[in-house]
């Protein structure tokens, strides 16, 4: 894939193509596979995403630990009951779907890592809800997934998409930035605007730590996927209004990388800091038999 968003966007502009076309062409060249094969493979992933979102909304999913589960269903029920959500009909539903996917993930159900399992709710939450609201076709959603993957590949190359290496900014931050670029493109924005949406989203999530309670992928992960959907949509509205990020997207990605490298390991998926070491977090860890000896905790 590409080494920078600037490179991707410049290529899209010179060729007069949307970002997804650039990404598909690069994937075809790298893999030696034809366009239909590549699209079919992405479509299969869309199907799994949709299924996982629907599963988590249709009924209260429970995780093995019992720490998470049922909240996507709870929110969805409220939305169906005539309640007018403060966040409006689109974000509220994206939030419900994002949480649904993550709850299915926590229950060891089948999901698509986008780019990781811990952040797997954001992209489907955003894209499936936009499809529901605006009637986009599955073909357009497949295009959007390619846009998202191109952005994610740049972040993976320049920074990281792993909580252990870069904290939650690297997982939900990356997912939200990917979703923002894809949503802008779906809604008719330019490649440049997609880039701005990446920058704005990621900037607003810098420094976010990975502090999973009991070392699981449940709390605060499920609700952080909700936050990622929200961060995505505010950036999308701004980008489409022509608002520019003060710092260009690749520089924001690089800043995320630098922050991640300097981040204390206690906040990088070790469950040794933050929410994981709150009294309640520690109690939950102990109840589940996942506590550590006291001398390792600070």
């Amino acid at each position, binding site marked *: *894939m590409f080494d920078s968003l600037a490179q991707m966007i410049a290529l899209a502009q010179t060729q007069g193509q949307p970002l997804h076309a650039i*990404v598909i062409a690069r*994937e075809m060249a*790298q*893999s*030696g596979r034809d366009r239909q094969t*590549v699209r079919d*493979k*992405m479509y*299969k*992933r869309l199907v*799994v995403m949709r299924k996982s979102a629907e599963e988590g909304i249709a009924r209260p999913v429970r*995780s093995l630990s019992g720490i998470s589960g049922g909240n996507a269903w709870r929110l969805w029920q409220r939305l169906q009951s005539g309640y007018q959500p403060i966040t409006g009909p689109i974000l509220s539903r994206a939030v419900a779907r994002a949480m649904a996917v993550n709850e*299915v*993930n*926590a*229950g*060891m*159900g*089948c*999901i*698509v*890592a*986008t*780019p*990781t*399992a*811990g952040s*797997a709710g954001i*992209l489907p939450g955003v894209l499936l809800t936009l499809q529901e609201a605006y009637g986009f076709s599955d073909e357009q959603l497949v295009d959007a*997934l*390619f846009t*998202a*993957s*191109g952005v*994610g*590949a740049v972040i*993976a*190359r320049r920074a*990281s*998409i*792993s*909580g*252990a*290496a870069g904290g939650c900014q*690297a997982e939900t931050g990356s997912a939200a930035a*990917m979703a923002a670029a894809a949503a802008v493109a779906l809604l008719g924005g330019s490649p440049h605007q997609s880039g701005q949406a990446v920058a704005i989203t990621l900037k607003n999530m810098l420094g976010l730590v990975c502090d*999973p309670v*009991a*070392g*699981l*992928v449940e709390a605060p992960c499920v609700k952080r996927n909700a936050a990622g959907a929200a961060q995505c949509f505010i950036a999308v509205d701004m980008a489409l209004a022509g608002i520019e990020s003060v710092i260009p997207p690749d520089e924001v990605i690089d800043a995320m990388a630098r922050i991640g490298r300097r981040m204390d*390991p206690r906040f*990088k*998926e*070790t*469950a040794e800091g933050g929410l994981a070491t709150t009294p309640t977090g520690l109690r939950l860890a102990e109840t*589940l038999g*996942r506590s*550590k000896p006291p001398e390792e905790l600070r």
Partner: protein
Amino acid sequence: MPGKRLVSAFDIIGPIMVGPSSSHTAGAVRLGRLGRAILGAQPQRAIMGLHGSFARTGRGHGTDRALVAGLLNMSTDDPRIRNSLELARNAGMEVIFRTVDLGENAHPNSVEMILSAGQQEIRVAGASVGGGMVEIQAIDNYPISFTGEHEALLVAAKDRPGTIHAITGLFLRYRVNIAFSRVERQHRGGEAIQIFETDDQIPDELVAALADCDWVYWARHIPRLTD
């Protein structure tokens, strides 16, 4: 994330997997699968050394179950992953988990696997670098860099003139194109490990022909990770 690894769109949107963690579950399954392929058989005994975040949160993310699922040759979306420890016991596989320190340069999601079957024993070290992507970083004491995104042939042979020529001659005969290759050795005239990553499938006949050569200690075909 440095290195020669080309990132595919499907590395980012993917894998399709059983949760809960792409690095600690899906990546771990893939590392286990590659370890098994490098050993060349289902392990009878596996000593799994977990390092860093893998060690600290591994149980919560099911890393132990995922690694063993890989040793049993499951894919990342196999619903049996959650039962892998029991399935391993039923298959007569002895698995021991321990915490290891692979040094501060090791990736926080690293594992050192010591796998044995019959007379074969091998040490495989690798890392789960995020999003389900993995890298095998050492076989026995040889540093290597191998991601499973290509078909691969692994050969341990006596270090002497002609070995690479013989191997590439076989590739030519079977019309297999080499994408990347690397040779590592400990000292001249000793043992050398050669890894060839290829664009095309590596046929069994090629591996068998190689294994027949008296200067080859062992040869392994590592199938591409397709999930």
